[in-house]
């Protein structure tokens, strides 16, 4: 019999009785396909967590409930990548350019607390709060860059913008950290990020 490639479907298999291709992957305990599907589609049935436990144990993926309370998990590759090298370098985003880094820093500053063990899930804030904190004038080029950066972060699942990412992103648009932030781990999240948040919080106190 020809070897069945991992991840392909065999309709005579008991797994074929399951409802969706991802359900079938859970029945077949196909962690490769589930991990790849999560990367491509973002969300998996909750039962995937069990199949992915082996990958989670070696730090290859992280599993987190999303913050809408839906019965799903969101996974991504663990991102213990880059240390905070200076004031604006935020973890794995060091490679994504200054605009998105600045927007991510702003989102972290208004949504995360230095006293929490992990920035995710943090609290809900607004686009206006980020703009004010970063001292960006309304309708300035910096404001346009901030909104573009936030949209890009939303595309990566690093922030969530309102319920449906409203056009124009007015100041009142709600911002919360995206579920991909839950996958961040390592020394820079444990040590450097709280330090950075605390320094900025102290500086804001002095300014105010």
């Amino acid at each position, binding site marked *: 019999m020809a070897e069945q490639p991992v*991840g392909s479907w065999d309709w005579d298999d008991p797994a074929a009785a399951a409802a969706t*291709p991802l359900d079938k992957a859970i029945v077949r305990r196909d962690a*490769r396909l589930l991990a*790849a599907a999560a990367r491509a*589609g973002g969300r998996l049935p909750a039962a995937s967590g069990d199949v992915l436990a082996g*990958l989670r144990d*070696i730090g290859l993926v992280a599993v987190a409930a999303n913050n809408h309370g839906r019965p799903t998990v969101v996974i991504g590759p663990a991102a*213990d*990548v880059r240390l905070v090298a200076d004031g604006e370098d935020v973890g794995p985003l060091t*490679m994504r350019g200054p605009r998105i880094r600045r927007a991510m820093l702003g989102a972290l500053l208004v949504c995360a607390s230095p006293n929490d063990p992990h920035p995710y899930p943090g609290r809900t804030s607004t686009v206006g709060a980020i703009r004010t904190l970063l001292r960006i004038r309304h309708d300035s080029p910096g404001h346009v860059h901030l909104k573009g950066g936030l949209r890009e972060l939303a595309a990566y699942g690093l922030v969530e913008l309102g319920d449906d990412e409203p056009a124009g992103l007015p100041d009142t648009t709600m911002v919360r950290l995206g579920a991909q932030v839950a996958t961040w781990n390592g020394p820079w999240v444990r040590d450097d990020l709280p330090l950075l948040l605390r320094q900025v919080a102290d500086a804001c106190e002095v300014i105010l």
Partner: protein
Amino acid sequence: MTTPAVDPAAFDAPVRSGAFELLGVADRDRVLALFAALEQSRLPLPAAEMPGDPVMVAALADIAHRAGRVVVPVGPATAPTGWTTAYANDITDSLLAADIGILPPEQRMVLTVVLLLCVAEPTARGQRPDPWSAARPIQRARLNACQIPDSHITPALAQLHLAGLVVNGRKSGVRPGPALDRLTVAQRSRVELALLGLAAPDDPVIRRIIARNNDRSGAIR
């Protein structure tokens, strides 16, 4: 001439299952960090950042495989300019079969035109861009000339740009984006064949090439 840190053929070798577990804790952390960098970086990692040690290379290939991914070179096969990750070929087929990760029709239409103008056209002139993201940009007006309504082009370009599938520069024009470097040789060949089929659907030679490839590797979607 500088020697690349990693042999371009290193990731063609069969995956050694369990190679990751053979490493010590510090080396495991290094390999995981490198894999996460390959997965998350918008641009390919410079070749100099890849490990030269075959044990580390085997461990990297092992964990990529477990996540349904492969490590692929970017640029000329003999002297890659960088490295990135892609879906493994068997995983791509399964994702397509499950309708996961497929672009909406408007985005597919615009991306196809960008690839026809930036990749297929220069390739036909003997100037194949390698990697595709290094292709010469086209002016946005050329997309409008393709009879696609502007109401389709603008939002599709914005979404494709966010996904890294095109670079949409206001002044520099439109070109394939770095996400298109995340393709294996087989996946890139599929797209190239599909572009050939689009450019000359009635050409008997091209039809024969596509049919032969379909027989070999399954349906092209």
